[in-house]
């Protein structure tokens, strides 16, 4: 039982992070109908900024403020100046802009800060005995912190979506862009804010995940792996559903932890493949994911 719980906690921790990345993808997808391949690299860039500031003696929590602001501004600017002009052309063009941003931001981070791994401090310092004991299993405080962060982010987003004018506009645009535009919503501005929001959440998620998930250091290739996990989670839940992203992320995290723990033949090095096979199967049976809205096509 305690081993099971330990694995469950580990899975929930990782899953919360996947869910947060999936959320950023979902927010972008709801407005622009594309997967932003560069989402991880935006977060990588802001995390490098944050690391650079901690090296200058800033408190790690304070560095989150410029990181979030830069994440917001970078993503919003990318939408406004790079994505929007080609959006009307086709899906492939937007995807290629995403790939360009992916390559470019990774290269830029490497050019500025070098390609060697950096030690990024933890937001919540841990020691050996900072855990709660639940039925013999250890639940470390930083795991609690990660899950709490997910709750705060999802809660904030839900409030934003359901209680504010901006949220109403975002939902309207996600449902039908043309009708939303005809109702007087500035669709372009909603796109820009959506991207910025995704960038800001990505910045927070990256700051949390870098010290916790392997390899535990800030390196150039790390975020791409996270992006794949986030994409898997988002697709599992249906790309346009916030609820789906959370369910997808948590089930991916817990599922991988269980596969690694119990299915020794399938675990270890091949766990991601197993997860991806599941996703392809899900897509084959339900092309719009578990919670995604069905796409109607005019034949």
């Amino acid at each position: 039982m305690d081993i099971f719980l330990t694995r469950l906690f580990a899975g929930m921790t990782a899953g919360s992070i996947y869910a947060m990345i999936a959320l950023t993808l979902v927010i972008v997808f709801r407005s622009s109908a594309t997967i932003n391949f560069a989402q991880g690299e935006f977060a990588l860039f802001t995390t490098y900024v944050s690391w650079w500031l901690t090296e200058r003696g800033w408190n790690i929590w304070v560095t989150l403020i410029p990181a979030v602001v830069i994440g917001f501004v970078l993503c919003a600017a990318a939408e406004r100046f790079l994505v929007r002009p080609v959006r009307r052309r086709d899906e492939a063009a937007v995807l290629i802009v995403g790939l360009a941003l992916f390559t470019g931001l990774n290269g830029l981070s490497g050019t500025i800060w070098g390609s060697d791994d950096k030690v990024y401090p933890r937001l919540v310092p841990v020691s050996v005995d900072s855990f709660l004991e639940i039925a013999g299993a250890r639940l470390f405080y930083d795991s609690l912190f990660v899950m709490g962060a997910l709750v705060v982010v999802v809660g904030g987003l839900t409030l934003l979506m359901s209680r504010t004018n901006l949220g109403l506009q975002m939902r309207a645009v996600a449902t039908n862009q043309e009708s939303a535009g005809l109702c007087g919503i500035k669709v372009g501005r909603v796109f820009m804010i959506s991207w910025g929001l995704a960038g800001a959440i990505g910045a927070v998620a990256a700051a949390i995940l870098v010290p916790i998930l392997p390899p535990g250091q800030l390196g150039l290739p790390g975020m791409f792996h996270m992006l794949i996990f986030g994409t898997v989670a988002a697709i599992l839940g249906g790309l346009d559903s916030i609820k789906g992203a959370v369910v997808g992320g948590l089930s991916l995290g817990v599922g991988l932890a269980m596969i690694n723990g119990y299915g020794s033949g399938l675990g270890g090095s091949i766990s991601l493949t197993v997860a991806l096979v599941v996703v392809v199967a899900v897509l084959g049976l339900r092309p719009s994911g578990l919670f995604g809205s069905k796409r109607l096509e005019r034949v």
Partner: protein
Amino acid sequence: MTTLIDKTSPARSGGQGPSGSGRRGPVVILRGSGRYRLILAVCLVLAAGFVAWGGTLQPFEQGQLTRAGIFAIAILGLNFTTGYVGLLSVGHSAFLGLGAYTTGVLVVNYNQTALSTIPVAMGICFVVGLLVGIPALRIRGLYLAIVTLALGVAFPEIVARLGGLTGGAEGLTIRRTLLRPPEWSGFTLGEKDQWLYWLTIVCLLLAFVVLRNIITGRYGMAMNAVRQNEIAAAASGVNIATVKLLSFAVSGAITGLAGSLFAMYIGSLFAEGSFTVLAGITLLIGLVVGGERTMLGPIIGGLIVVFLPYYTSDIGGGQFSAVLFAIALIAVVFVAPDGIAGGLGRIIRKVVRVDARRPDGGREGGLFGDAPTATATESGSAR
């Protein structure tokens, strides 16, 4: 090239250039005419000269050229499905790796000669391509890109898993003596680089000619139709499932050929190093920058993905080439959606236009891509 053409030639009067307007239209050359053959011959001689010059280079530079040729073959394969049929694939690195590991495993574990493994590698990649094509029947666009992403991510993991066969994470090293050029070629073991260079050139040429013939033929028209409008294509009698599956399979086989050559070139295979999704993205970048749906695009793309990082390796610790790639990609998306080859083609077509003799055209897949629409609208607006 333009100096070769007499601008007052009678051939011009045959075209539909904008007459009466102040601007002179492009010179029209009929396909199959003497002038056309002369230009073609000059281009071929120039290309042959370039290839022959590559044969005399020092081993290192020649190796880089071989590498570019291998990537050009791989991008040719990618162009076949991503360019012409529009099935976006970010996971073609898996086919590259599959071809490479087929050759590697057969040479190391089963004592085959390197050359004889090429058909096997292509066959395996063909079958895997068919299998991967199956989701493409139901899943579209972005979601399909994710399926291919899954393929690309899964490949290194599976290789690591099958450690007994593939050497796992330590990699698979093919001893140099096992890659001895065959007797009949006349190359000795010491001239392995030379042999590989010429082998790559021959393979590139073969792949180029075969794919060009497919694309300009009936099947190529079907592929274009599927990309542009599936419903219209189906209504015109195109079997969409067959086109999608076969194009993915052929594309996989060609990229597998590149992988097989890559194994011979590099000698030691590391799935985590050479065949990750990042390699698949590199192929895609090469294709887009070189020019989708053009025949020369993949070759330009192959040269770029090899030589751009090489020449910028001094700047920013080797990371700067990525930034340049990004700028090139964005420039391509904004300025020349059909890549460098397409952009060059458009400029050339302002000066020279090649018209088919047949009235029905059928010029899709020309060296610089399918241009007729651009020229048509242009001359239309000039009137």
